[in-house]
């Protein structure tokens, strides 16, 4: 459903992304992994149509169900971003306006995309339940939410807008590990129940191996290895992927000591 070909992102003379191909299907999760400066976030921004607003020049092709997104007008892009592609960030609080109650943010977004007031309320409550939050939290201000709750609210927003593709940029990197596990559960459930396609940007190979079907390893703006998680992370072929995997500190498992 999402097809990226020869994507190039430039800041002036400097090319920061040179991705030959990425593909994402319905109900699939594609992980993009890399270290600082690898271009993984900029790739996501370019796919979401946010890169030009950051002063970058974008080349190549990004197709959503056959429709070319590169070169679309701002208005057309905004419509697609609201309706079909949603994005969540590492700091969930940044996607929520601090002066509005959570519910108001939902209502404005849903009304903007044509829902009636009653319908918008119903969809907001339903979306909150789908991420295991009480609809009562809709009455709170963003600062009254914990980090995990705020991230679930950001995900609920994507659900309420019935997005087909969710671009998640390090969505759990700022969260404690037990909270991270809860968010990953929520994303896993949405993929199954809402057929959500997800682009999951992360520096954490272990998280990616748990939640993604396919993975692309980025280094210096390029995808150096990509394929199914089972192959790429368990039998890596690129030396950089191997270095990355070897660098992850590992815990001893009970099985390893029990034998």
């Amino acid at each position, binding site marked *: 459903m999402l097809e990226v070909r020869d994507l190039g992102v430039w800041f002036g003379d400097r090319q920061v992304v040179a991705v030959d191909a990425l593909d994402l299907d319905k109900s699939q999760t594609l992980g993009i992994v890399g*270290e*600082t400066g690898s271009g993984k976030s900029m790739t996501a921004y370019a796919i979401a149509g946010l890169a030009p607003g950051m002063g970058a020049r974008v080349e190549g092709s990004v197709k959503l169900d056959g429709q070319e997104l590169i070169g679309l007008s701002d208005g057309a892009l905004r419509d697609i971003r609201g309706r079909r592609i949603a994005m969540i960030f590492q700091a969930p609080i940044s996607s929520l306006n601090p002066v509005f109650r959570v519910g108001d943010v939902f209502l404005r977004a849903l009304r903007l995309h044509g829902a009636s007031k009653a319908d918008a309320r119903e969809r907001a409550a339903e979306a909150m339940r789908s991420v*295991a939050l009480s609809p009562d939290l809709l009455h709170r201000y963003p600062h009254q939410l*914990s*980090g*995990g709750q705020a991230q679930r609210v950001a995900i609920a927003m994507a659900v309420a807008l019935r997005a087909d593709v969710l671009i998640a940029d390090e969505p759990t990197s700022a969260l*404690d*590990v*037990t*909270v*991270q*596990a*809860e968010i*990953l*559960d929520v994303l*896993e459930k949405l993929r199954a129940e809402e057929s959500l396609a997800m682009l999951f940007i992360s*520096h*954490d*190979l*272990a*998280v990616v*191996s*748990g*939640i993604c079907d396919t993975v692309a390893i980025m280094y210096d703006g390029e995808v150096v290895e990509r394929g199914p998680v089972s192959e790429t*992370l368990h039998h890596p072929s690129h030396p950089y992927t191997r*270095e*990355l*995997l*070897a*660098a*992850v*500190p*590992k*815990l*001893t*498992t*009970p099985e390893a*000591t029990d034998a």
Partner: protein
Amino acid sequence: MLEVRDLVVRYGPVVAVDGVTLSVPAGPAGLGLVGESGSGKTTIGRAIVRLTEPASGEVTVDGLNAFNAKRGDLKADRKSVQIVFQDPDSTLDPRMRVGPAITEALRAHAVVERSAWPARVTELLTAVGLQAEHADRLPHQLSGGQRQRVAIARALAVEPRLLVLDEPTSALDVTVQARVLELIAGLREERSLAYLLISHNLAVVEQLCEQVAVLYLGQVVEQGEAARVLTWPVHPYTRALRTAVPELSETLPAPATKRAEPPNPADPPPGCRFHPRCPLAVDRCRSERPLPREVGGRLVACHRAEDSLAETRG
């Protein structure tokens, strides 16, 4: 060499650290402090280096009480205990070159003669895997990993007895982290270092520490040999923490805890602080605070430790 007894630290009405007892033997030795946001692990580190004043309790380094020390002795204390933070930029002056930054520490604590300073700077840079020419660089001319190496070199300059490492690699990329962890492991043996490693990463602690203490809302819930506690956790919180860690080899296991509002440190739950999230909680847990006791070869503060141990042994 480090003894922390019944340490209590308050921030206004919040009891950030509530009666923590820890010890680190003479080096080479590492004690890991693990826990999530609000567990008090960073506050304990700050209290040990006297950046935070405790409400009560005792911290001794080599038998000397760190809190009763006279003003002049404070400098001596700072010399024996040094801290390395997560963000090296918070300790490095952006306008000061690496060489002078390290020399400053040598001068302040009168570690060696003035004539020996340049040689000592080179020696310290080499010890942390940098070169003599890095002395002329400004912090922004170095990578994040190199800046953290400089912060470690500066902490080592005063030849401390104990290092407090507060999330020293959490801001670094994983390949850079691996090299800094190797550096710490190497220095530990070469210099017989003792350290307190504060980390949210259990695997990092297992790699660098013999002992571990697990904190939850300001209290130690489980403490013992790192290999034992992290591989075979007994306290339901340690178990939840352990199962929540994503691993490369398997799909994510479901969290063992109940979903609950995050705990409020200003108004901690009565009884066992973990009981609102604990799958094993019984009435007693809601009213009576569990004290640490020895179960399964480690200290655990849990009324149901035996049952929990039986479950993990499956």
